[in-house]
């Protein structure tokens, strides 16, 4: 009398689950690659300042990003260590901002072209001179809605 009855011959064999991991891995890799945000790789240092009175930037398709900050270590030799503007994947001068905005605006569907927001992602150590230049350029192309992107936090942490 054994506790566990022995399997009789002639039973339907269980479906092999050995390939299940492969299928799941395939799915995993699919999601890992697909969910990468279309975000230009940063070539500038980008530690944003803190602010407490923030509003969320809803609807990503209505946002144009401008990055400002010191070039990262790799680019320091070629571009120096003064804060620079990064548009898409390259460094730019303030005078190119206007054209960039117009170009990006033209890419968007007609109906949202005049509700676009420009998100300024500026490193907290940048100086206002550059920002003012950008703002002037934005005013020239009538891109008046800006969002100073920040982290949520106590604004007084910025001062240290």
């Amino acid at each position: 009398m054994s506790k566990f009855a022995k399997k009789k011959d002639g039973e339907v064999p269980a479906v092999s689950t050995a390939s299940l991991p492969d299928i799941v891995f395939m799915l995993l890799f699919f999601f890992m690659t697909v969910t990468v945000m279309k975000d230009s790789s940063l070539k500038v240092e980008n530690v944003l300042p803190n602010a407490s009175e923030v509003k969320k930037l809803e609807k990503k398709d209505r946002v144009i990003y401008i990055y400002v900050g010191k070039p990262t270590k790799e680019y320091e030799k070629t571009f120096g260590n003064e804060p620079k503007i990064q548009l898409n994947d390259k460094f730019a001068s303030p005078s190119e901002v206007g054209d960039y905005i117009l170009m990006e605006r033209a890419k968007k569907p007609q109906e949202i072209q005049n509700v676009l927001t420009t998100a300024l992602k500026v490193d907290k150590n940048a100086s206002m001179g550059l920002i003012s230049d950008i703002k002037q350029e934005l005013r020239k192309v009538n891109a008046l809605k800006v969002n100073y992107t920040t982290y949520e936090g106590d604004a007084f942490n910025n001062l240290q």
Partner: protein
Amino acid sequence: MARRAGAPEVSAGSMADIAFLLLIFFLVTTTIETDAGLDRMLPPMEPPTEAPPIIKQKNIFTVNINRNGQLLVEDEILSIDKLRERAVAFLDNGGAPSGSPDFCNYCKGKRNAESSDNPTKAIISLKNDRETKYSTYITVQNELVGAYNDLRNREAKRLFGKEYVEMEAEYLNPETEDSVKEELKEKVQRIQGLFPQKLSEAETSSE
């Protein structure tokens, strides 16, 4: 002893579970985080021929930031943590005498005749140096927006029993239903009308 001949096979049955776990992890964590920040409107480029409107000096609250991050508020040096308080006092002053068309019946300020007449008239003018650090600028902006939000919250609570920032966030949220949005829009605009954000940014001085 046939079994001792090779190493025992490692069971791969739980591999699927591990992979699923990873899959779920990536599915959950890669939700695109929404950025947040301070919304501002830039002034439109005005035609150079247009004469600037005449504004009474007492209705302007000047904030100057120098290159070292120090503040000059209404020609006095002020530490940055007092800024919100001062801005609230200025906006909420309601200095116009009762009976005049500018009289502010919801202001709770000191009603100093030397300060702003009415929140709808009050303008904050922000000026900064080219060398000012961006983080200082954001702190100042944050405090000024905070001053407006404080006052708007107060009025929203009084009128609708709910904080203004909450109502606005709900209004801007794309998931809110349209019928609720319509209702909120009216309320939000009413509060905005009581304390309109008039924050003027002069072009930066280079000295």
